């Protein structure tokens, strides 16, 4: 039971990060039906920028929370700019091209971003300065750290904020209209190009915060950290039904929990034949299983086929 609770807490933490990243994928997909393949790199850049700022400020003796806040505040605009650039360079010129063309140009962008990051931040693993004192709290037989609590709270706040934005504001209405039918939205006076750019930028802002959270959770940043994280988050978005905001949140949390519980129990269940090194398999196995039985994801509607 203790293991269960502990893995549940770890899974929820990781899952809320996945969920925030997944939102970026699902928003872009919902509006232009394309996978933003470079989204994981945006998360990585967010972590890297925050790392630089936090390392620079750490010896200054500021309160830790303020330092992290400044780090995030620097990471967000940088990532927003990158998100905007991605849309303008890799996606907008290819909006009417065959479907795979933007995928390839996004892969190109992600290669460029990764190697630029490597130029700036070296190919080493960068250790985040441990400025926040990890205060373990005991819940039942498990421990939960202040960082974990902070990650979960931040994620929930951001998801709530995004939901408000999408469902309660004029901008959100325009986004949903564009997602449903670009041509009609344009006729109703929606500046479709601007809305699509804004969608990329909002996704990138979420990714920046997610990057800071991952960086401070694991205490490490690396120029390749975006790939696997992006992959998992994209799986989470598909799991929940891509293009569907609540689906991305559900998928992210679910994926995190499944992964953590799988890693915690696989040894016991298989008589130590398989260990926690199979952790990454669970995410994909669950994904495949869910899609086989629910081809549009958990909360996805049956959308029209487009090849």
């Amino acid at each position, binding site marked *: 039971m203790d293991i269960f609770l502990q893995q549940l807490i770890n899974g929820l933490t990781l899952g809320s990060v996945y969920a925030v990243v997944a939102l970026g994928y699902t928003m872009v*997909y919902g509006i232009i039906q394309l*996978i933003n393949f470079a989204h994981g790199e945006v998360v990585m850049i967010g972590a890297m920028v925050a790392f630089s700022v936090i390392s620079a400020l750490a010896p200054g003796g500021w309160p830790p929370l303020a330092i992290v806040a400044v780090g995030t505040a620097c990471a967000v605009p940088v990532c927003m700019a990158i998100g905007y650039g991605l849309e303008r*360079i*890799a996606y907008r*010129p*290819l909006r*009417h*091209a*065959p*479907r*795979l*063309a*933007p*995928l*390839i*140009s996004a*892969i*190109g*962008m*992600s*290669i*460029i971003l*990764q*190697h*630029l990051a*490597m*130029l700036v931040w070296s190919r080493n693993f960068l250790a985040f300065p441990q400025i926040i004192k990890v205060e373990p709290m005991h819940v039942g037989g498990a421990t939960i750290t202040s960082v974990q609590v902070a990650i979960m709270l931040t994620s929930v706040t951001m998801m709530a904020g995004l939901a408000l934005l999408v469902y309660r504001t004029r901008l959100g209405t325009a986004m949903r209209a564009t997602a449903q039918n670009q041509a009609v939205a344009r006729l109703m006076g929606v500046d479709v190009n601007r809305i699509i750019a804004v969608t990329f930028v909002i996704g990138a802002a979420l990714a920046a915060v997610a990057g800071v959270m991952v960086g401070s959770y694991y205490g490490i940043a690396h120029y390749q950290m975006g*790939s696997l994280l992006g*992959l998992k988050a*994209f*799986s989470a978005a*598909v799991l929940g039904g*891509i293009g569907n905001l609540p689906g991305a949140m559900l998928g992210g949390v679910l994926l995190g929990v499944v992964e953590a519980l799988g890693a915690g129990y696989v040894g016991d269940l298989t008589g*130590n*034949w*398989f*260990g926690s*090194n*199979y952790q*990454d*398999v669970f*995410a*994909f*196995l669950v*994904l*495949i299983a869910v*899609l*086989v039985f629910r*081809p*549009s*994801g958990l909360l996805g509607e049956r959308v029209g*086929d*487009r*090849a």
Partner: protein
Amino acid sequence: MRFKAPVWVGIVFVAATLLALPFALAHAGTAWVRITNFALLYVLLALGLNIVVGFAGLLDLGYIAFYAVGAYVYALLASPHFNLHLPFWLILPAGALLACLFGVLLGAPTLKLRGDYLAIVTLGFGEIIRIFLNNLSRPVNITNGPQGIARIDPFTLGSFDFSRGEKIAGLDFSGPIKYYYLLLAVTLGVIVVTVRLQNSRIGRAWEAVREDEVAARAMGINTTAIKLLAFAMGASFGGLAGGMFSAIQGFISPESFVLVESIMVVAMVVLGGMGNVWGVILGALLLSFVPELLRYTVEPVQKALFGRTLVEPEVIRMLIFGLALVLIMRFRPAGLLPSKVRKRELSERHR
């Protein structure tokens, strides 16, 4: 078939070039022959994936898994790891067959998924295969984990060893040159098969499914079976290429079968012009040779310009590569040599 004289001249010219090529390359260094061999392996992979992506329109982002299956079948059955040394003409088809089986296993439950869902499932499948290869070293050592399998047998036919250099008819046939001819023969075979496939009943069925699945079904095409066939066929080509990779390289590890490799092959297919066999070949050759050319030019150019190496060549190479992907897609979104159907689609969309 009757060719006019100029066509024959062209064919003879191309054939002569292809036959003489390894000796010219060997002049520049054996490394270039090896690079060419790997380029041919990528051509094989790209042609295999083209059946799935280009002909049938199914996006497969985990294609390298089939390559891995073929490579590991060969490595396990022809290396000191299990002390098995079966002949290559037996295990090469076995690898292709097992890859085909994996293709069917993956395809059967997932082919009803469309587009991006299928893409992510295949991607997940590729990762699962890689993780298993990486970890199946305990409790029973099957794949030897991240260390990989070394000292894999080369191809041998009787006393003819493909890895050993020898003089034949006064010419210096090094190991890589022998493999070059073998790969060239296999590649030509695969090209013939795919071109014939494309113009066959099956090829037309694939095209119909790709363009409009509902209409294809209404025309009496068993869409599930025809998609599964594409998957299985693509997979077995991948398995075949994997087996050859194993033998040529002599060493394999899970490192060689990472997601980036899958994406690379997809990039070759799309960049060249998916659905068009010649475009795909061009894409594969470009994406294998350009990074290598850059490897040899980036450093001297920097030295000439700034007097020293400012940026690691590897980084510049990848930056230029990424930029090339973006730019080519920007200006030739249907690929460098688009297939006729794609061209038609593009112009229709802009009417």
